[in-house]
């Protein structure tokens, strides 16, 4: 790590810590969402970026996490903080199950992406139909804004929590780049047959990484449910969340530590810029689709022209070298 990079990290950390004291509340909220998106993006990046297992259905883990903690609280009276590890365990279990089924069947590439999409769809339909999720009505968490309930009156605390989650996810990704487990994942991504020939247990490693990714993403689901105190099948299991996680990672740089964070920053700026454009042009009453159109175009450009994402531009400028998968 060069002094320049270390300096940038310290500066970024300090700026993020004092940020909420300097700006109005709505900007705190935007930054909170940015860190949160970077966090769930990182959960996608662990399996989709580092291990190369592109998923179109990560919302399945997000939704399992959100529903697990919400059901435990609302129906069984659990404390939200206690429900959090439980939902991570459920997310990990679902990740493990999907991985065992799909990788045992030898699904790779596009087929794996499509089967994850189908799993998310199955969970969405189930959540819409079974009784204990209250179906399409969704579930409300009773508002009781006390820290011990994982609900905060002051948005500054939820901001710091999102920031902390983002830091933890960066540390996990950083560990991946320097551990043997991470090296095995990269070997699998680059060439599965070669990895197997080197003696790597490809199946087990892929199951492990999807379990980890699922547990992380489920943690994000609980966070989301606690922030908005409401969850329904299409928020939880809809394709929008899956695409969001994939987008920030692809745009920022798949398989890099900072890719999801950089992608999340970029998409937040695009979002605010389109909101600004839309407020200037009254004909554009609907902002959401406009920013998604820009995201879609960015995704295509990145895949076509910049396979390592915005991170590679950044790496070339700051680190003075072209990084092929950090």
């Amino acid at each position, binding site marked *: 790590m060069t002094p320049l990079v270390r300096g940038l990290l310290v500066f970024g950390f300090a700026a993020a810590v004092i940020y909420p004291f300097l700006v109005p509340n709505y900007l705190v909220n935007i930054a909170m969402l940015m860190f949160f998106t970077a966090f769930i993006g990182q959960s996608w990046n662990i399996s989709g970026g580092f291990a*190369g297992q*592109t998923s*179109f259905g990560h919302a399945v883990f997000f939704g399992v996490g959100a529903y697990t903690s919400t059901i435990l609280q609302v129906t069984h009276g659990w404390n939200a903080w206690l429900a959090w590890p439980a939902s991570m365990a459920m997310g990990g279990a679902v990740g493990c199950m999907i991985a065992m*089924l*799909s990788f*045992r*069947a*030898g*699904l790779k*590439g*596009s*087929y794996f*992406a*499509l*089967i994850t*999409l*189908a*799993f998310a*769809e*199955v969970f969405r*339909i*189930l959540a*819409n*139909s079974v009784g204990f999720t209250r*179906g*399409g009505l969704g579930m409300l968490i009773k508002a009781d804004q006390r820290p011990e309930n994982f609900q905060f009156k002051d948005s500054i605390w939820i901001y710091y929590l999102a920031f902390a989650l983002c830091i933890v996810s960066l540390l996990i990704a950083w560990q991946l780049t320097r551990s043997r487990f991470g090296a095995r994942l990269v070997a699998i991504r680059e060439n599965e047959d070669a990895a197997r020939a080197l003696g790597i247990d490809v199946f087990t490693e892929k199951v492990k990484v999807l379990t980890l990714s699922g547990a992380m993403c489920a943690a994000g689901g609980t966070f989301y449910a606690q922030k908005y105190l409401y969850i329904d099948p299409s928020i939880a299991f809809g*394709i929008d969340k899956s*695409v969001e996680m*994939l987008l920030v990672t*692809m745009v920022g740089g798949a398989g890099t530590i900072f890719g999801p964070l950089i992608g999340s920053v970029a998409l937040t700026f695009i979002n605010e810029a389109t909101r600004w454009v839309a407020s200037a042009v009254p004909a*554009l009453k*609907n902002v*959401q*689709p*406009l920013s*998604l*159109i820009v*995201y*879609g*175009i960015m*995704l*295509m450009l990145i*895949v*076509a022209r910049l*396979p390592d994402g915005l991170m590679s531009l950044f790496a070339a400028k700051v680190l003075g070298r072209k990084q092929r998968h950090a």
Partner: protein
Amino acid sequence: MVDPAIILAGVLNGLLAGGIYVLVAVGLTLIYGVLHIINFAHGSLLMLAMYAVFFLWRLLGVDPYLALPIVIGGAFVFGFVLYRLLIGRFSHGKDENILLITLGVSIVADNAALLFFGGDTETIAVPYAGEIIQFGAAFLPLPKVVSFVAALVLCAVLGLFMARSDTGKAIRAVAKERQGARLVGIDVEKIFAISYGIGIGCLGAAACLLMPTFYVTPQSGYAFVLVAFTIVVLGGMGSFLGAAVGGFLIGVTESLGGLFLGEQLGQIGISLIFILILLFKPTGLFGSKA
């Protein structure tokens, strides 16, 4: 026990819907068979074609069935150009990349539709919408029967085209052995673009046949994409016969699923079939060993 007459009606309705599914799936399987790419934008392009049919009717008063040649032609050109300008440039790299490119196309298409057409559900009220044909104990809506017959005729036309015409032979040659096809002087890139165009042209036809009995929203694409993939995977990727059989099976599954499990839970059958086929028989019913 459910009345057998209701089951019969369910099966017939499923078969009628299946006819249009066949058309959608044939386009997808053709693109896969020739180009070896998974066209995730298939549903979204169908949605755009459905809007084209809707606006032809709303603004110019063109009947959806009469719009068939216009929309098929327009969709073919759209697909051809889309391939030449965008998809073709990326289709020979890693297969996840082309999947992501077509995902990008579908994100742009879905949201452009939402931005320009709004989120409302649009339908076409054709004068013959309420006509009923009696078939044994079952009563079938006339537009569904017409669409079913038209879908089969169009599939037969496409089959003849593939079997007899020079272009069709070239497409089959490229699908089998693209190096060899290039060596005997076939312009492979052009055949790719034509195949993609035909695949999208099938969507244009399906859109015309769907609109008299169905509706369109910007989310319609997502609703269809999983159905289309399920049919193609069930039948075997790249197999025309598979797409045909799969289309009818899925149509009936959906219809009976809705009958026995209710509107909400009934949709689960399609996703489950998709997962089970991929897990246990990835070559599908008629697919060749990959």
